[in-house]
Structure formats: structure tokens, C-alpha cells
């Protein structure tokens, strides 16, 4: 697949703090690439550097092999976003399209089509301050794609949306990717990321932690875990084979299993005196990996181990 955006060994520091260190990744045509990480990990800084809103201290960013980012081919929805308050919806959409050098007639047609799609039909002459927050976000989303960008960068597109609107956005983003748009998406909503993305890049403290194919990542990091409800002794559980660690909360115990474990045969090792109200085995979700990184940095060490 054709590479649309390549970020090469990007570093950026503020004052004494290294916000982003040696970050490299690429985004390809027609894929959805997720950039993940806890607050303050450096996601937005990375994105702002790509957009040329900040300039990197070190490293290079190229777009289809060119150094200069052609802004009119990029759609951008920043994390901190808003719209002029006392302006009509259509006016602002056309203004933003004009800034991208997109033909106005086409922009108007597309704007109307998208407003209809997002349940905002008839609102094109409303002023922004009359809209609800969710409606405003829809208008912002439309503004980022109205000029048919080849690369779309979405920083937390789902924050503050209700589930219905989330689905609308999700479907639209997927459709854009199918049509060949390269999409870079940052989000905290792990379930959405897990559903939508082809590849992911997870960062913590400005550094890369995980980078790769969604399925590979899941396979590599998402070991099985066994959740048992019932009063049991933690030490006894820790003594079981293939258990990496045990987390206990009241009478629920979560046993994190080692990588190569075979769930069915592992179940046979469970002692008969175990109290079981409920028992489930599943893979660790992206959500848990994320929490794990954000709170302990465990994966960091693990990745170090696997790459060693």
C-alpha cells in the first residue's frame, strides 16, 4: 500500500520536558491508523508537528515522499476545537473549504449532503451558537472532510459524542478509508479503536511503546486472562502454573496467564477446592493494555523483553 505520511524520528521538547522522543511511523492510503496513549503521552504534540502548527526539534515528516506538507490535501480535526460563534453553518463550511482551495460550488453540494447525512438538514442557515455541542462537533467533522482530503487526521474525534453520533462518525470514517483516504486517528475510546483500526501506534511519555498491526498487537500483547468470582486465597492462585500475576478485588480474582498458554488444557490444572461462582477466560483487551501502560508501564518492560 502507498505510504501517504511518514514520520521519521520525530523529537520535540518544551522547556525541559521532552514531549516527543524519536517517534517514527507511517500512515498508508486507505488504512485507519490509531495513535493511542494516556493524557500527556505526546499524541497531540505529534499531530501538531505533522500539521506544521509546531516545528519538530529533530526528525522529518514527509507526505507522499515530499517534505512540504500540502495543507489542502489534509483534513484536520484538532482535539481542542471550536467554531466561530455568531456565524452561519454554511458560511463557515464554505470559508474552510475556500481556505483549502476547494471549488465553492462543489463544497456547497458536499456540505448539504453531509448535513443531511448527519441529521442536520435545514440547519445550514442556523448560527453555530444555536447548535448543541454534538451538532457543533458534527459540523466540525464535516469541515475537516469537505475538501475530500487524501489524509485525514482526527484528534479525539469521539470525545463528547453520544453513542448514536459515535456510530455515525465511525461509519463515515470507515467509508472514507474504503475510498482510499489515509486516516490517522487518536482516541481514548479503546473499544472503538479496536473495532475500527488497521494498525496502531501506542505511546507513553513521548516514546513509542507498541507499533504494528492491530491483530499482531493483540496476539502479541493480549494474553489470556481468567476471571474467577468466589473467595479464594491469592497465594494459592499465584501458585498455579502459567500464571504471571494475580489481581484480587474482594472476591473477584483476575489471573493473567503467560503468552503461550492453551486455555483448555490450562483449565484442567485448576484445583478442585476452588470456589467458583463464575469463571471466564478471554483475551486482555486493548483497553486493559492501555490502562496497564498508563498506570504501571508494564508493557514497556515486556516489549523490551520480546525485542531482546
Amino acid at each position, binding site marked *: 500500500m502507498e505510504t501517504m505520511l511518514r514520520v521519521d524520528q520525530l523529537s520535540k521538547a518544551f522547556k525541559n520536558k521532552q514531549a516527543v522522543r524519536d517517534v517514527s511511523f507511517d500512515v498508508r492510503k486507505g488504512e485507519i491508523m490509531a495513535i493511542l496513549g494516556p493524557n500527556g503521552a505526546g499524541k497531540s504534540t505529534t499531530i501538531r508537528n505533522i500539521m506544521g502548527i509546531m516545528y519538530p526539534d529533530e526528525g522529518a515528516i514527509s507526505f507522499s515522499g515530499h517534505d512540504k506538507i500540502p495543507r489542502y490535501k489534509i483534513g484536520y480535526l484538532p482535539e481542542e476545537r471550536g467554531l*466561530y460563534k455568531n456565524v452561519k453553518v454554511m458560511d463557515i463550511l464554505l470559508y474552510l473549504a475556500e481556505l483549502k482551495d476547494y471549488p465553492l460550488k462543489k463544497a456547497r453540494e458536499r456540505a448539504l449532503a453531509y448535513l443531511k447525512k448527519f441529521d442536520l438538514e435545514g440547519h445550514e442557515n442556523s448560527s453555530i451558537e444555536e447548535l448543541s455541542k454534538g451538532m457543533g462537533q458534527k459540523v466540525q467533522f464535516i469541515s475537516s472532510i469537505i475538501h475530500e482530503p487524501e489524509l485525514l487526521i482526527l484528534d479525539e474525534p469521539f470525545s463528547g459524542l453520544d453513542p448514536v453520533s459515535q456510530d455515525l462518525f465511525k461509519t463515515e470514517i470507515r467509508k472514507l478509508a474504503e475510498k482510499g483516504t489515509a486516516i490517522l486517528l487518536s482516541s481514548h475510546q479503546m473499544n472503538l479503536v479496536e473495532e475500527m483500526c488497521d494498525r496502531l501506534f501506542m505511546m507513553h511519555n513521548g516514546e513509542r511503546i507498541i507499533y504494528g498491526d492491530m491483530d499482531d498487537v493483540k496476539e502479541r500483547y493480549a494474553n489470556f486472562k481468567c476471571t474467577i468470582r468466589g473467595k479464594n486465597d491469592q497465594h494459592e492462585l499465584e501458585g498455579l502454573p502459567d500464571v504471571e500475576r494475580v489481581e484480587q478485588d474482594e472476591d473477584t480474582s483476575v489471573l493473567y496467564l503467560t503468552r503461550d498458554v492453551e486455555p483448555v488444557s490450562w483449565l484442567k490444572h485448576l484445583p478442585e477446592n476452588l470456589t467458583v461462582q463464575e469463571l471466564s477466560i478471554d483475551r486482555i483487551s486493548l483497553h486493559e493494555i492501555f490502562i496497564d501502560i498508563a498506570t504501571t508501564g508494564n508493557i514497556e518492560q515486556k516489549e523490551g523483553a520480546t525485542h531482546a
Partner: protein
Amino acid sequence: MRNALKVAKWEIRRNLKNKSFLIGMFLTPALFLGFMFLGSLFNDSDDDSKTTVFVNDELGLFETLEETVEKSDLNWKMQKTDVTEENVESELESSENTAYLYLDDQTLDEGVIPVYTSEEIGPGFMNQVQTLSTPVKSLQMQQLGLSDEELAAVSMSIQFEETTADELAAADDTEASESGGLLGEDPFAQVIPAAFALIILMSIIVSGMYIFQSASNEKKDKIAEIILSSITPGELMQGKVIGYFGLGMIQSAVFLAFAIPISVWQLGDVPILEYLLVPELILLVAIAILGYFLFAALFVGLGATMADMSSTSNFQGMVMMLPFLPLIFIGPILSNPSGIIAQVGTYVPFTTPGVLLIRLTILEDWPWMEIIIALAILVISIWIFMKLAGKIFKTGILMYGKNASMAEIWKWIRA
């Protein structure tokens, strides 16, 4: 530049669609001109504001007094009366803005003229009354038996007449330049182009204030980053400066559309347009426009540092007041348009446009050397402030929801 023009066009269109901007645009000149001409209207329709002065004249001076009053343009209505000093109290109680004067032999001897005034008498009345002392004095002299010549000599006061070295030089240069008051022979010839330029300066400084608001709102509404994904901060800033310049011009046009017809109507005998369309106007308007660019740079940079007007720091508040600095100089300039204070004001870039416009209105011979130096300083300052504003704007506009501190601004400037 193309992108900057897009921003400029947008800012103009956006404001012209904004009701409060439109109202302000038409209300400002209406109010301004309203106050200017309303005052003169009231001064003209003045029959009820005339002070009625009753004179109980036992000396036969009434006609002379009336003549004096007419000559000194006092707004009086003179009448003879027989009301005696004993009855004056009751007369005054039932009247307003009225005075009684008593002239008899005793007053001549003692040199004191009793004046009784009612309520609502104008505050300057007692000063005005003093003008009557001259005819009374001459009567006094006549009675002493002085000849007319002696009278003339006595009643003439001694005056000192000042002629400065400058004036001597000027008198040598220009043959018989008659000094007719502060503004020369025909005040309108100079005042009209300057008033035109002042209107432009004022309009665009006001729209400079709008720039501040626009930059600050961009920060508050968090739209800057969306805009900056399409264009550079420099283009956004230029676009704003150009756009609000356009708005200022529109505002000026509206203002003048009110002012010129009204002036023509009010000052019927003055050939307004003839005085307006002179070569000097080009320089005056150029000064006003340069003034705009200086303050636009200042305000666009400042706006980018402030999201919230209510928590402005002292420093930022002071910058907001800079356009009004020339007001401080008006007094000294009027009293001496070539004095040291006027010159200092000419060279300080923030006051240059205002001070220069005032001085050029008053001065008959323009100090070209000073004008050129001042404009050079102004142009250089504009360049420097645009650079600084660019640096501040670039970082400040993205600092959402927060006012920048002095230390931060300083850091951005040095970066």
C-alpha cells in the same frame, strides 16, 4: 498573500453580516455628529436663554450701554425700568435669568454699581457685566472735565505685544502674512482635510480594537488550530490586519457619507469639497493609515495573548490605552504647536499619527524635516511591531483558554 486575502475577505463579510457591528457602524457617526451639531443648534435657538437686564438709569447712559453690549456680542436683552432698589426683591422672585442695574450719581462717586440677579442667571454674567465699566468710567472722566484727547489717553489700556524671533523670520520670509488667530486666515481650509484624516484615523483605530477582539475570540472559540491547518499563522495575521483595515475604510466611508452632507448643510457658506480635495489630504490620510497599521500590529498581537478580557493584566490594559495617548498632548500642542512637547509627541511612534495630524492642522508652514523623520520612525516601528506581533501571534493564538503572562510573551519574542 492569497490566503491572507481570503482571511481578509472573510473577516469583512463576517462582520458586515453581524448585526451589532452594523449597528455600531451607523450609530457611531450618528452619535458623533449628533453631539457636534446638537450643541450648536441649542446655541442658536436661544431666545429663552437670553439674560434680561433691567437698567434703572438716572445718568442717561442707557444708549451707550446698549451699544457696548451689542459690540461685545453679549446675549442680553436690555430694558429700562423704574423699579426701585427697595422693590427689586419681589420683582426678582418672580423672574428667571434677570438682572437689575442701578446707575445714579452715587454710583459715579463711589465707583460701585449695584447689580441684583435672579435665579438661573448664567455663571459668566458677572464677568460680562464688567464690560460695562468702560462707558461708565468714561462718563466719570467726562464729569471731571477732561478733554476728549485726555479721555482717549486715559481710557486706553496699555498692552504688551509679543513678537518672537520665529515670527520675525517668518515675517521676513512671507510678505505681509497677516496672522488671523490660531488657524490663519481661513480656518476651514486647514481644518477640513485634517478632520477628514482624523475621522479615518479614528475609524480605523476603532476597527483596530475589533482586531483585538477577533484574535481574542479565535483563541476563545478554539478555532485557530482548524484555520491553521490550512494556512500559516503569518497569513492569518496578515489577513486580519488587511480585513479590519477594509472594515475601517468602510466605517470611514459611512461616517463621511453622514458627515459631508451634514457639514455642507450646516456650514452652508464654506466650500467643503473644495477645501477637502487638496494635495495635503494625501499626506494626512497616509499618516492616518500608517497609524492604523501600528495599532493593528499591537492589537492583533495582544489579542492573541488574551482569551479573557476580565483577567487582563496591567500591562495589557496599558497597551489598550496607547491609542488615546495623543489626547495628553493636545493641550500643550494647542498652546505651542512647535514646542518641545509637540516635537516629542511627533517622534514617539504611538502618538505620531495623532500629534502630527493636530500639528499639521494648526501650523501654516509644515515642518517637512520633522514630518519625514517622524514618518520614518513610524514606518520602522510598524515593521518591528509587525514582526513581534507575528511571533506572539504564532504561539499565543494556540494557547487556548488562558491569558499569556509577561514572561511567556517575552520568551516567544526571543524565540
